[in-house]
């Protein structure tokens, strides 16, 4: 064989091999590749198949994942599953199912040209329908394919004053607004094409909408021209939540929407009188009235009568014009000097004296027949005089009750065997150390909690907790803090479980009377504000209520009340426990309060008062000393 023929044979073999390779490919048609320009980057879809005139793509294709990531969408699908779900950034859920041509885009049912199918374990779904549902379109620019964001909807929604236009696209919308004569407005959206009808007539403040796309495939812009009805004014237009563009139309022309001026409630002068010293001797009959405090708040007045021990009381009031009210504490001695002093509206005067050898009387002169709420608790009695006028025909004019009871009675010593044994869940809790309160400053160390700028939850909770500790210790309580500096309670970078359980363990192993966890709330926007007290176990409720009531009464702050929630630190505390979210770090007004040392002191004071409303005054020390 000569050289030429040898070459021919070789070439022939090579050709045959190529032909064989080509033939081998034929029975199992390969997937196509599709390169897409997505925001300046190239994304290659490798599992694309023609399906009649339509295109199918494997939902789990790496290119599809890259595309979804680029536009803030996600895929929910597992091998073997029938449902293929996408969540867009809007968010809208797009739902496909293997074998069903129906697909859903949010609330809208649609039909695809073919039913999604499984091939080699991959779920193939209609490509163009998916892209369209994501508010994009595939457009050709020469030989390249571009994923072009689309203006997907222009909704006119009725509003109180007229109408609101909401424009939505596959990307967050930016807009330029120009006004022209003839009551015409042109809104230009750069970077988006449109799949909307070019023109439509509407009723109401906007009479006509025209949509026109200009520019190139890569740099489109869509102009929306609105023709307004005579006399209709429009707002400036804004992008809300960094996504949709909205513009308000006002049928009543010329009435500029005035923003209501947010006004912080004036903070009343703090009551600086030191708390009455807690009785440290076992109280034999008679009991002692150890203090009477007056706290004005937002037009009403709270009078706190501190009583050491168990006794009874009664109160009476007179009808107008003699608006006097008196409350007698029975079997009691006045342990403070008698008082006679002016009050603050609606209480015009307050007198405290030993009425007879067995009775201490607190007498109030009221400005009118004001609403009065008399509430006994373990620590004494609260009289809340409201600013509103009570109904003379139905309002109570007398009452009686018992002071002390449950909380102080718990001070009896508990069997030592209890201390480390599991507690039957429905048995009443008996503290091994009824004088001990555990305060848990939320977060700390490697866990900052929530923060805005340099205002950090773990620092605020520690500060409030230290102030609370000092007040409680001054009132005769023993206090353990789960942390008293900036650190993790269990270990740095520990698990949430270890960290929270370590805090519960401190309270559980020491047999504390109660656990209070101090936190600062946060939300994704600045709206929510105020204080919330969380509880979970039935035994937590009374503590949460008492603390919440004091926060509501003593602080100029919105009260969001008590909320049941399965919070770990509350659930796993054996004793009554509550978690107080003192204020929102995410709300500017609340954040300003949190940054005020005076406010944090007031919060600590309210927490201490709430604790004592629940637990009574500190039981006498028995061998153990306070911190």
């Amino acid at each position, binding site marked *: 064989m000569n050289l030429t023929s040898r070459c021919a044979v070789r070439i022939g073999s090579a050709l045959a091999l190529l032909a064989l390779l080509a033939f081998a490919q034929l029975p199992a048609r390969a997937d196509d590749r599709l390169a897409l320009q997505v925001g300046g980057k190239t994304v290659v879809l490798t599992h694309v198949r023609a399906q009649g005139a339509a295109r199918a793509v494997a939902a789990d294709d790496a290119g599809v994942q890259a595309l979804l990531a680029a536009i803030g969408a996600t895929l929910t699908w597992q091998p073997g*599953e029938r449902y293929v779900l996408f969540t867009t950034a809007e968010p809208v*859920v797009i*739902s496909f199912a293997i074998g069903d041509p129906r697909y859903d885009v949010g609330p809208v049912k649609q039909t695809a040209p073919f039913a999604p199918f499984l091939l080699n374990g991959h779920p193939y779904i209609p490509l163009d329908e998916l892209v369209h549902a994501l508010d994009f379109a595939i457009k050709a620019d020469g030989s390249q394919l571009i994923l072009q964001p689309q203006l997907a909807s222009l909704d006119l929604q009725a509003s109180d004053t007229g109408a609101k236009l909401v424009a939505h696209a596959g990307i967050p919308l930016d807009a330029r607004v120009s006004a022209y004569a003839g009551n015409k407005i042109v809104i230009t959206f750069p970077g988006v094409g449109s799949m909307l009808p070019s023109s439509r007539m509407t009723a109401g403040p906007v009479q006509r909408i025209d949509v026109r796309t200009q520019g190139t495939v890569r740099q489109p812009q869509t102009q929306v021209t609105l023709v307004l009805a005579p006399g209709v004014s429009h707002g400036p237009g804004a992008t809300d939540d960094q996504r949709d563009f909205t513009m308000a139309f006002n049928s009543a022309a010329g009435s500029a929407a005035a923003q209501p001026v947010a006004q912080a409630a004036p903070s009343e002068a703090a009551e600086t009188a030191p708390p009455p010293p807690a009785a440290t001797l076992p109280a034999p009959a008679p009991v002692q009235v150890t203090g009477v405090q007056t706290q004005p708040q937002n037009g009403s007045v709270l009078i706190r009568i501190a009583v050491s021990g168990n006794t009874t009381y009664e109160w009476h009031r007179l009808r107008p014009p003699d608006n006097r009210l008196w409350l007698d504490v029975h079997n009691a001695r006045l342990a403070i000097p008698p008082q006679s002093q002016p009050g603050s509206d609606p209480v015009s005067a307050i007198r405290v004296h030993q009425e007879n050898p067995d009775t201490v009387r607190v007498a109030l002169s009221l400005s009118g027949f004001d609403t009065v709420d008399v509430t006994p608790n373990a620590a004494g009695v609260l009289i809340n005089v409201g600013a509103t006028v009570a109904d003379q025909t139905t309002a109570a004019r007398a009452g009686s009750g018992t002071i002390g009871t449950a909380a102080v009675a718990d001070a009896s010593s508990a069997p030592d065997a209890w201390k480390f044994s599991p507690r039957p869940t429905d048995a009443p809790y008996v503290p091994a150390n009824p004088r001990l309160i555990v305060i848990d400053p939320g977060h700390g160390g490697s866990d900052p909690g929530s923060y805005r700028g340099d205002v950090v939850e773990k620092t605020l909770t520690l500060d409030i907790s230290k102030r609370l500790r000092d007040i409680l210790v001054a009132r005769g309580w023993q206090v353990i803090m789960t942390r008293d500096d900036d650190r993790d309670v269990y270990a740095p970078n520990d698990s949430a479980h270890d960290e929270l359980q370590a805090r519960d363990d401190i309270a559980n192993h020491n047999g504390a009377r109660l656990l209070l966890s101090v*936190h600062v709330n946060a939300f994704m926007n600045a709206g*929510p504000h105020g204080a919330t007290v969380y509880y979970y176990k039935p035994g937590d409720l009374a503590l949460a209520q008492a603390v919440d009531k004091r926060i509501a009464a003593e602080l100029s702050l919105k009260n969001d009340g008590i909320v049941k*929630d399965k*919070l770990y630190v509350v659930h796993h505390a054996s004793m009554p426990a509550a978690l107080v979210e003192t204020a929102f*770090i995410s709300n500017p007004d609340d954040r300003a309060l949190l940054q005020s040392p005076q406010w944090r002191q007031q919060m600590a004071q309210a927490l201490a008062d709430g604790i004592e409303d629940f637990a009574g005054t500190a039981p006498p020390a028995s061998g153990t000393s306070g911190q």
Partner: protein
Amino acid sequence: MLAVAAGVSWYFASHQRSPIGANITVYYTKDDGTSEVPWTVSMRPQQAGESASEHLNNAVLYAATQAVAGPPSSVSAVRFPPGTHVLRANVNDSTATVDLSEEVKNQTGGVLSESGAFKSLVWTLTALPGINQVAVRVQGQTLSTLPGGHLELDEPLRRSDW
């Protein structure tokens, strides 16, 4: 006789109709952090070859995906951290287990956001027939709470937890 009975019971077991209707109710939590607001989404009918139990699984998956997505952005609602999505969901007796993507760990602190988001998920899934509690996984793992979080996640959550 026994074979006929077995055959009949097989027939009914495999052709059992799902109790799930044409619509399912999804809840979101208002930004007060506690109020649940229902909305309705259309549910794909049980398909040929899809057993009643698979249809319930799919309904749980779909409802969970809707609840985690939340209502349109124009609605002020408590939401999971951006990017959080359902990886998988299944049903075991009366417990729905939902596996969430790790973005759920990106919570920025505060009981209100964290708890409100899970509350909407639990309310949504326990609205489905036969579901009364929801076990939460994150990337396949059971967590006591989210990192730096508050809400207890190591036991299934029920409506009565709030």
